[in-house]
């Protein structure tokens, strides 16, 4: 980080030089930034010159005398008020009257320092000001980042919702135009694809609602003592028909104590997502092994498949929103791209971790570790 630029506007040469001297070798350490903060001082002797200098290159901090030869410090503040500059103003006042203070604060001054002041008082004021300025900048940066993430999310969501609608419309158009001739059976494939895309869209909306619920924190969590083995059994049973169609066997093994305090719905979402992925991204005739292991403080969930696997660079980004690994092997698999992101976010509520180990063309093993007793918001 470069030095913070300080502009001193004071008609007393002694004050200008004194401030420059006091800050020449002054450095600060603040918790908000890594680097040591230095100050670079520039000085002018009137309000007019200060405004000119600010227009040319706004400083980070303005040390502004109230009573100068031409326009006053308050006049300067008033002229700066509407400019929304990323700068904090400290007033230098000879007579720290309440009245001046109130007026200056109304005009946007951040702090005061009363003449005469010692170098220590000056440094303390600058420490306070710099710390506020940098915290404010960081907060702004975070807010912008949040807005950007939100915007990206909505942009991709729009795309993901429009794509299936477009596909369905196209097929309907083909059907309406009797594109495949008079034989009704020729349209089965189109109808099947329409249904698959509609189903995909419904899943996306369901995932989106799950995600919103988790992130908003508004849903009343129904915390109770639940048995993860029971939940896993339910998920495996629900998945059996889909697995059987592709001749995939799904096995459940458990070991140790599987009771934990949690929200049954949340835990079902984790297991459903992992087990359905293990089936979806498997090869025909493959297998899925779900293992639950109770440890003293945690429960480990492991879901291993014999599927297409994934490359290490893909594994790293897999748990983020809308990340779908697109390649030859996944092109016909429909998914919202939100499932694993939801798994990660729920796991976090259980002081948990998520991870994947994978080998391309051999299979993947997903591991989720949950704390037994600390479901937090």
């Amino acid at each position: 980080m470069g030095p913070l630029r300080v502009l001193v506007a004071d008609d007393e040469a002694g004050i200008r030089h004194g401030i420059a001297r006091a800050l020449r070798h002054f450095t600060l350490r603040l918790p908000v930034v890594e680097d040591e903060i230095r100050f670079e001082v520039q000085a002018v002797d009137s309000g007019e010159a200060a405004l000119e200098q600010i227009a040319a290159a706004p400083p980070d901090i303005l040390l502004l005398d109230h009573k100068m030869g031409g326009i006053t410090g308050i006049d300067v503040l008033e002229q700066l008020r509407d400019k929304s500059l990323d700068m904090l103003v400290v007033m230098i006042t000879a007579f720290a009257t309440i009245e001046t203070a109130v007026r200056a604060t109304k005009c946007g001054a951040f702090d005061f320092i009363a003449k005469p002041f010692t170098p220590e008082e000056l440094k303390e004021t600058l420490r306070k000001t710099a710390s506020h300025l940098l915290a404010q900048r960081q907060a702004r940066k975070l807010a912008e980042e949040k807005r950007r993430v939100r915007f990206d999310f909505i942009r991709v969501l729009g795309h993901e919702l429009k794509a299936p609608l477009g596909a369905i419309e196209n097929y309907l158009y083909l059907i309406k135009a009797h594109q495949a001739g008079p034989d009704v059976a020729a349209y089965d494939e189109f109808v099947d694809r329409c249904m698959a895309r509609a189903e995909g869209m419904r899943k996306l909306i369901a995932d989106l609602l799950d995600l919103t619920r988790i992130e908003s924190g508004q849903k009343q969590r129904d915390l109770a003592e639940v048995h993860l083995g029971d939940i896993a059994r339910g998920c495996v049973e629900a998945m059996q028909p889909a697995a059987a169609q592709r001749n995939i066997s799904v096995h459940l093994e458990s070991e140790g104590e599987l009771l934990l305090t949690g929200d049954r719905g949340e835990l079902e979402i984790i297991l459903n997502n992992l087990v359905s992925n293990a089936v979806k991204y498997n090869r025909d005739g493959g297998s899925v092994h779900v293992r639950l292991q109770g440890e003293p403080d945690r429960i480990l969930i492991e879901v291993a498949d014999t599927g297409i696997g994934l490359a290490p660079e893909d594994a790293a980004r897999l748990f983020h929103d809308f990340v779908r690994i697109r390649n030859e092997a996944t092109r016909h698999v429909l998914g919202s791209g939100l499932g694993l992101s939801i798994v990660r976010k729920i796991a976090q509520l259980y002081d948990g971790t998520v991870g994947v180990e994978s080998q391309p063309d051999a299979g993947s093993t997903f591991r989720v570790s949950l704390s037994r007793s600390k479901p937090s918001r």
Partner: protein
Amino acid sequence: MAHNILLVDDDVDYLTAMRLQLESAGYHVTAVESVAAAHEALKTLTPDAAVVDLMINEPDDGFIMCHFLKKHHPSVPVILVTAVTSETGLDFDASTKEERAWIKADVVLAKPVRFEQLERELSRLGVEA
């Protein structure tokens, strides 16, 4: 001889529907789902027109594909198809010379594209079935 159209889009359903409609209108269609497959196809084929989706695997794959086509097959008209404009408010089209200079497409169409619209643009570019 029927004109050959290269279709590049990662949405397999969109690709199927467009291919069927173009074929029934009398075009020859080479439909591919990835940039890699498009490059492979271009080794042996010089299409009469290319219709490229903007978001193929990466959000800007279509731009890159267009650049490649204009560089190596400058005579092939390119139609860039995108759902992006309406979602981001990020407005661009290829109506001015300046825009065509950086977009490298002759026409930009917003998804969902109606088949008639595509056919009209193809014939405007001189690529009749």
